[in-house]
């Protein structure tokens, strides 16, 4: 069954679909949406099938394909998955259709379509302060006479409705393709290409599909997101090229093939430089404290669907990169920098949580909670124990689900009231009980309540870290109190108490479409909380292998039981 080129299929289908959908005229919006949904669902099915075809305990990459691409630089189109990337591809395949369905009506007949730019100068689109130009374009304007503009010019310049549904769908599909690619790539160059390529659709999602009335903030957020990520990406490019050059020195001919690159034994000094290059890129992407400030802006300005994908998937690329590239390729450097990473992680846990508590904008709040979650993930990855590592990878999936759901719920609220300001809500539990319930479930998953998916991953991370460094684990564990606070405080302010705004008194509860969106998420959140074994069995071997390859093994307990390991009795 492995003869089937699963990954290429998963990669090509959305890409082609994107081209097709993009060609749809605006009036065929509905058809575009339907097609997109169908395609993404098909991708989901295929991804699940692929998962069944996958052999968890077989070493190395599976579904591998390898074609030369740019032989001059030893670059090839090489894809393949191990447990780690497979689950993330699954997550991608799941979240995209969910997003499509959740933003189904978002851009139909948007009232703000014809709205003015809100007096926002283009320079607000991120032009650095101080870049103002008193004398534009030199004295040209003075000397060259400017007769009145011709009439047809005016006629043609009338603004058309600003949000095209087909384009939105196309962007989602491109994003999906890019994400599959980034997780499936086994050629460092290919990975880098996708790593950068996925920025563009997300950039447009934020920039042109964010909150309609906040044009200036949207552009600012989009540009900030792009440039920030780009900066990281370019530093990584230096490291990528450096890696190539190093490989060229070690091997006969330079290569980007991951498998052969991890065979190199690079001198520690060089490792540190290359690690730094990769790490900064991933730390910005993830994001880890203190490279996070783009996230709240982007999270708040992206359309809800975009925010789900941004926080649920794009940011995973960073943490994925840490375990896929940083640790296996630069083991010595990973050791050397581990304290720094762990410190940043723990800081992030508390920093993110406290800032989340302090937010008044729901989308920003959720973004900050993610910062805390990424702290946990990074902590797990750099504790170098199979438990923590497995937990961290599982955490990536779970965070996608729980935070994804949280963003969706917030989106539903915004769709009803048109604002993300927490102060505008309150007492909704009576008006929209289902919505409230869903938000609570999402929140509970976010605070890692046992029985929800996140608990498994968070506890694995903590227990794994504990065997590696007790102090760190203990400090991190206290973070769960803060998690409880930011979740329940949000719920209290929005859902409980008396209804403070008349506008809230008769908001509609979840529609069937919205229920259909959240149902699978909730099912997974609880299902994976009760029975995470299937995923764990996929993830564990790959993570264990990763750490064994860099010579890390779990510390054995001082007083093991003679009976077989584990709680069976």
């Amino acid at each position: 069954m492995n003869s089937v080129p699963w990954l290429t299929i998963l990669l090509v289908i959305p890409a082609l679909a994107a081209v097709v959908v993009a060609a749809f005229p605006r009036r065929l919006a509905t058809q575009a949406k339907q097609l997109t949904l169908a395609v993404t669902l098909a991708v989901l099915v295929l991804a699940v099938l692929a998962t069944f075809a996958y052999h968890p305990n077989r070493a190395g990459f599976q579904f591998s394909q390898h074609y030369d691409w740019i032989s001059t630089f030893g670059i090839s189109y090489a894809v393949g998955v191990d447990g780690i990337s497979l689950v993330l591809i699954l997550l991608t395949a799941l979240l995209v259709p969910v997003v499509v369905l959740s933003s189904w009506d978002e851009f139909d007949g948007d009232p703000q379509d014809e709205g003015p730019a809100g007096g926002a100068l283009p320079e607000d689109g991120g032009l650095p302060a101080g870049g103002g130009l008193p004398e534009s374009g030199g004295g040209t304007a003075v000397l060259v006479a400017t007769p009145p503009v011709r009439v047809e010019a005016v006629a043609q310049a009338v603004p058309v409705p600003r949000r095209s549904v087909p384009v939105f769908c196309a962007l989602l599909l491109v994003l999906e393709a890019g994400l599959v690619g980034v997780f499936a790539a086994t050629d460092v160059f290919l990975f880098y290409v996708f790593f950068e390529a996925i920025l563009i659709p997300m950039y447009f999602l934020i920039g042109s599909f964010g909150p309609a009335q906040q044009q200036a903030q949207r552009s600012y957020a989009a540009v900030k997101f792009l440039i920030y990520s780009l900066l990281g990406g370019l530093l990584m490019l230096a490291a990528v090229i450096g890696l190539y050059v190093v490989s060229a020195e070690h091997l006969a001919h330079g290569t980007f093939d991951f498998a052969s690159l991890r065979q190199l034994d690079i001198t520690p000094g060089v490792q540190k430089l290359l690690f730094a290059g990769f790490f900064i890129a991933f730390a910005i992407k993830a994001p880890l404290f203190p490279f996070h400030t783009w996230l709240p802006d982007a999270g708040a300005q992206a359309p809800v669907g975009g925010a789900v994908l941004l926080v649920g998937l794009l940011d995973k690329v960073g943490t994925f990169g840490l375990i896929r590239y940083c640790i296996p390729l630069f083991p010595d450097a990973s050791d050397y920098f581990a304290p720094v990473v762990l410190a940043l992680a723990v800081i992030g846990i508390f920093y993110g949580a406290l800032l989340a508590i302090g937010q008044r904008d729901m989308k920003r709040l959720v973004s900050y909670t993610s910062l805390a979650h990424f702290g946990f993930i990074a902590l797990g990855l750099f504790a170098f124990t199979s438990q923590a590592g497995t937990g961290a990878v599982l955490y990536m999936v779970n965070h996608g689900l729980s935070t994804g759901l949280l963003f969706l719920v917030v989106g539903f609220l915004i769709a009803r009231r048109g604002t993300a300001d927490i102060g505008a809500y309150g007492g909704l539990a009576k008006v929209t009980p289902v919505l409230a319930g869903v938000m609570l479930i999402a929140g509970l998953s976010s605070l890692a309540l046992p029985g929800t998916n996140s608990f498994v991953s968070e506890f694995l991370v903590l227990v794994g870290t504990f065997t590696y460094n007790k102090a760190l684990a203990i400090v991190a564990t206290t973070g769960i109190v803060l998690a409880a606070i930011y979740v329940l405080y949000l719920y209290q302010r929005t859902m409980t108490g008396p209804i403070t705004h008349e506008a809230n008194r008769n908001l509609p509860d979840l529609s069937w479409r919205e229920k259909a969106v959240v149902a699978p998420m909730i099912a997974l959140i609880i299902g994976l909380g009760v029975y995470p074994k299937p995923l764990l069995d996929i993830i564990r071997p790959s993570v264990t292998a990763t750490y064994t390859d860099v010579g890390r093994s779990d510390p054995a307990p001082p007083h093991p039981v003679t009976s077989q390991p584990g709680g069976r009795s």
Partner: protein
Amino acid sequence: MTHTPVHYAAASGAFSVSWLLILLPLAGAAVLLLGGRRTDRFGHLIGTLAAAASFVVGVVLFAAMLGRSGDDRAVSQHLFSWIPVNGFQVDVGLLVDQLSIVFVLLITGVGTLIHIYSIGYMAHDPARRKFFAYMNLFLASMLLLVLGNNFLSLYAGWELVGLSSYLLIKFWEDRPAAATAANKAFYMNRVGDVGLAIAIMLMFATVGSTSYADVFGAAAANVIGYGTISAIALLLLLGACGKSGQFPLQAWLPDAMEGPTPISALIHAATMVTAGVYLIVRSAPIFNETQAARTVVVVIGAITILLGCVIGCAYDDIKKVLAYSTVSQIGYMFLAVGLGPAGYAIGIMHLLAHGFFKAGLFLGAGSVIHAMDDDQDLRHYGGLWRYMPVTWATFGLGFLAIIGFPGLSGFFTKDRIIETAFDKGGTSGYLLGAVALLGAGITAFYMSRLFLMTFHGRPRWSSEGEDARHPHESPPTMTGPMIVLAVGSTFAGGLFVLGHSMQDWLEPVAGEGVEGVHTFSPIVLTALTLVVVAGGFAAAWLRYQARPVEATARPDTEVTLVTVAARHDLFANTVNETIAMRPGQFLTRFLVWLDLVGVDGLVRGSAAGIGGLSGRMRRLQTGFVRSYALSMLGGAVLMVGALLLVWGG
């Protein structure tokens, strides 16, 4: 050093379906929550049915257990592998043994009764279905807590009961007070949970497993260092304190009374709050190994007893008084189990007895509140016995039980605790005994105060006027459970002590109940206790029965400092706010500012810097050919100069 795990019998016969215990209420909850409004009409019936069914299963299992020989009564059942990651193998499994079955019966039994009671109590609440769903959810979680065969399953149950407690405290969500109380409860519980979680990690790090069998095996084999095992014990204790509202984490429990009264009876009196006691007894093999931890337990117990009693005397809110009495009663249990093997069984006994009478008391209180149009102020009651006789009778029995009236359950269980405390011997023994004794006296005082102010004396309410009250007896659905519980609280204690039945039953779990040398002969001590209790009652009688009670409490300025302090929960909340909340809020605000101005400021600043640089550099492009030429010449000179330098040097 390695060691062999404790052996449990494999599940067979009735035990192979013990998971029904949890599944039934869980299914109930699922049906009610997913069913939505459709199930509104009969939701409460489904919920009650689920609870009752679970209780039946419990009884069956109990019978089956009786049928087994002593040493394979502890049955462990592996259900499925939960979190398997290499060395870390956690299963979902059940351990039905003498200890857990007792709890199962208590939980499902009292639970069922309170379900029935709620049918009447919540009759007029539009969200009754949800209420029953949550109660079922609670039963399931609580049963998971007591039935789990490893610490992680216990932890799961532990947090899930926290969740259901949260849900039920804020059941009337539109009351801000309720929502706040619920959050407070969850936060403080989470603090305790941190301790429990870390304890589990430490176990895994030490033994490589979290199952009772392995951990207790290791503990019994005495291979774990004293420091480590004490740490584990203390961390467990932190968890226990959080859940059981023990000092210093007691502040949430009184606030939790914002929830509907049946909840106060079920969760915040009979079952959940006693989970801490269960945890300690369950972890007896660990606590046996560390005197240090046990000392801390008794100290906490002792402190909490007094704290609870003292505050209990000051409140006029009937439920708050009962809440603080719960706090102090659980203090007794902690004191008992803190005494080690001598006290485990006694602690459990008191726990069960308390389960009955406190539940009974709360239900009675509920019925009173119901009758008085949701007025909870003792000072607005009085002389109610005439109007609600059943309530008066059942409540009275519960009251007698708690103050330890001879023959009723409290009399047996509490006296045994006092006795054991003295028997501990040494100064500490006397100290603890004295505290327990004093506690008994004060308990007698405030409970009598409560009882008298509620049912006796002249009514402080009027049957006409704008806030007219028409107290009436509650419907049978409510009185029925009250009667059952009254009966329970009357005889339970007796049954337990009769021929050490309870002690022997729990012996495999709690260990040999060593009969220490008596400091005082039991007779003397009993007499002494009775005198103290009588004193307490007399004081209350003189103060609240002989003299009329003011309809409004005196302002703080006219009462003693002790009373003021007691009225303010001994400033527990003030402390919490000053050491945790305020700094937290400040820190949060500061960080928000820092993130905006500092971290992000750096980012924006650098962007602005480059922009500014660009703005200034543009000026160099003056548009004058000659200045361009000059820059070229300059460049040329520099380049040639540099090269010549290279050549020269």
